[in-house]
């Protein structure tokens, strides 16, 4: 009969350990082995240089439209590094760094962006890049359900952006994850902009993390440009999934420093000043300050890492160009490959027609 509060939602924590000036909260600082610190650093720098190179290739017309990740390296690197090989990695379309950690090569990514299905190589327990925004969240739930059913020690980590949190697919996935108590970690890369729509127009809730509360599990907001905070939050979430079979939503507050894709012109909708403010919060310089202060790496080491990566990318592009030449020489009826497991008769007929035409036209587009 009375009107009373029956549920006081759990609070939403914000976690930041290493700030933009490189200052560390010693009480919160995780104990990360030196080799892992170096691995985080290398992967972030790799992603940044790969991004720059890929942008150049796009501007030169060597590849097509491309979605850069600049600024979001910490959010995806420090989280995906928490997965073991048997865990599942489910990306959206802006997780190149995480994909490379999981076993894609620069060549795979370049072939994909150059318009070849051959660029979709899927390492075990990974899914390929997913175009329809947020739809991959539901697949993560299904994967996690199967892991649980089969009593396999597997955690599923799914990435999405702030835009995805408006899609029904995201909410349905969160609800299923809560209802079935699934070992899944939702990593939201809240990069503030869904093309031209700012975060505050995407949702009226104060945080994205709090959306987890409605679905019966925990959410946390972290400074997504702080690799230490992401590392800690992702570690806790993966552990909760593994030992308690409970989902978590991690909101990484980060920023898309570059374009949505190379077909986008952000000057139409956001100010240079805003971008400059976020450039100051860049995850890489602050992490390098941290590594230096800790005595893990020096300026010389940083330069050496960059040099090594640049060389690696140079070689990788040379090899990719060679592969593209080979693919261009491939008989184009490969477009008929692997559409079904069992090819229907009319499709076989269409392929035969295609080949007859190809022969008649001497291999030209016809």
């Amino acid at each position: 009969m009375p009107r009373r509060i029956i549920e006081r939602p759990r609070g939403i924590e914000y976690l930041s350990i290493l700030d933009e000036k490189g200052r560390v909260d010693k009480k919160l600082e995780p104990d990360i082995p030196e080799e892992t610190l170096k691995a985080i650093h290398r992967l972030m720098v790799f992603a940044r240089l790969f991004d720059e190179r890929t942008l150049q290739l796009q501007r030169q017309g060597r590849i097509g439209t491309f979605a850069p990740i600049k600024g979001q390296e910490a959010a995806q690197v420090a989280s995906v590094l928490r997965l073991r090989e048997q865990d599942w990695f489910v990306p959206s379309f802006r997780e190149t760094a995480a994909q490379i950690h999981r076993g894609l090569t620069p060549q795979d990514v370049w072939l994909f962006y150059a318009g070849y299905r051959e660029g979709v190589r899927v390492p075990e327990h990974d899914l390929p890049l997913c175009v329809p925004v947020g739809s991959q969240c539901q697949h993560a739930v299904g994967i996690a359900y199967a892991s649980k059913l089969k009593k396999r020690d597997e955690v599923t980590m799914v990435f999405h952006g702030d835009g995805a949190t408006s899609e029904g697919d995201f909410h349905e996935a969160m609800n299923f994850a809560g209802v079935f108590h699934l070992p899944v970690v939702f990593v939201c890369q809240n990069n503030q902009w869904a093309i031209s729509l700012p975060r505050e127009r995407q949702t009226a809730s104060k945080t994205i993390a709090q959306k987890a509360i409605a679905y019966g599990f925990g959410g946390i907001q972290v400074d997504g440009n702080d690799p230490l905070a992401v590392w800690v939050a992702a570690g806790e979430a993966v552990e909760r999934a593994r030992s308690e079979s409970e989902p978590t939503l991690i909101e990484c507050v980060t920023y898309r420093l570059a374009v949505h894709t190379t077909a986008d012109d952000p000057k139409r909708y956001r100010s240079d000043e805003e971008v400059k403010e976020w450039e100051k919060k860049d995850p890489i310089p602050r992490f390098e300050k941290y590594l230096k202060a800790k005595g893990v790496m020096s300026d010389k080491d940083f330069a050496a890492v960059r040099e090594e990566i640049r060389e690696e990318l140079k070689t990788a592009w040379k090899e990719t160009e060679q592969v593209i030449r080979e693919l261009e020489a491939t008989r184009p009826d490969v477009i008929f490959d692997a559409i079904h497991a069992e090819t229907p008769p009319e499709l076989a007929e269409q392929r035969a027609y295609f080949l007859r035409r190809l022969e008649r036209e001497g291999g030209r587009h016809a």
Partner: protein
Amino acid sequence: MPEITLIEGVNLALKEKMAENENVVVLGQDVGLDGGIFRATIGLIEEFGADRVIDTPLAEAGIIGMAVGMAMNGLIPIPEMQFSGFSYTAFHQIENHVARYHWRTRGQIPMPMVIRMPYGAGVRAFELHSESREAYWAHTPGLKVVIPSTPRKARALLRAAIEHPDPVVFYEPKAIYRAFRENVSDEPETMEIGKAEVVREGRHITMIAYGAMMPRTLEAARMLADEGIEAEVIDLMTVSPLDEETIIESVRRTGRALVVHEAPRSFGPAAEIIARLNDKIFFELEAPVARVTGYDMPPPFFAREQWFLPSPTRIADEARETLKL
């Protein structure tokens, strides 16, 4: 009026109709401040304000579902799906509600709405940005499907679609958004929905196409003309309902026909057109009606998409085959 591109034709119609009727609203992702990712809605927010040019959260089903409610309450919503491939997320709202409310309520709740979406391959985009699935919408009872092929038609047909009492899926051929310019009249021009147009006259064969396949089909007709084959070319403009009268009148004269679309072959619009011709004038046909289409596959990743799209050469070849019979 200066010569404009197809996308500018879309923009012009939106501006005109928004100025003419304060109940017309535009909604979708990036349609406001950004002016639409293809710039179809550029300048609208400045002219008509953010209340009528609505930047929505990222949710296709939400955009269409909200448009349904708007149409119920006196507005004429023009939701944009950023790419036709993204409309699948909204399929249930379109199929379950947009197309059925008039039927469900015996006309008590009509659905005046235009769902705009760019479609088609040939722009070197990645997956789900090159889809041509007009057959889905044409197959759904309750919808009209309109596909312009030139700047002038884009403007005039979009105006007509906005004035139309039923929901219209307005499928925009993005491959030719900026391919060429055309003069449009200073006075608002409106073309009738459900009418096709003979855009080139000929007596040997009728070639039927629409949207982005029009320039390719006309190119094929020019190739054939060099050999003395006079192809008549029909621009459907409205895929559903089909303008049977114009098609039949032409094919009756030529005795031969060929249908072109980039959508997959099986169960595509050509199959319907061929069935209608068989129903109505089977004994007047000199040869089986041919079709030149995309293959039964998702559009290939873009490095090989041109192998998928009907080319002028392929269209001309198939016309010659038909003429041999």
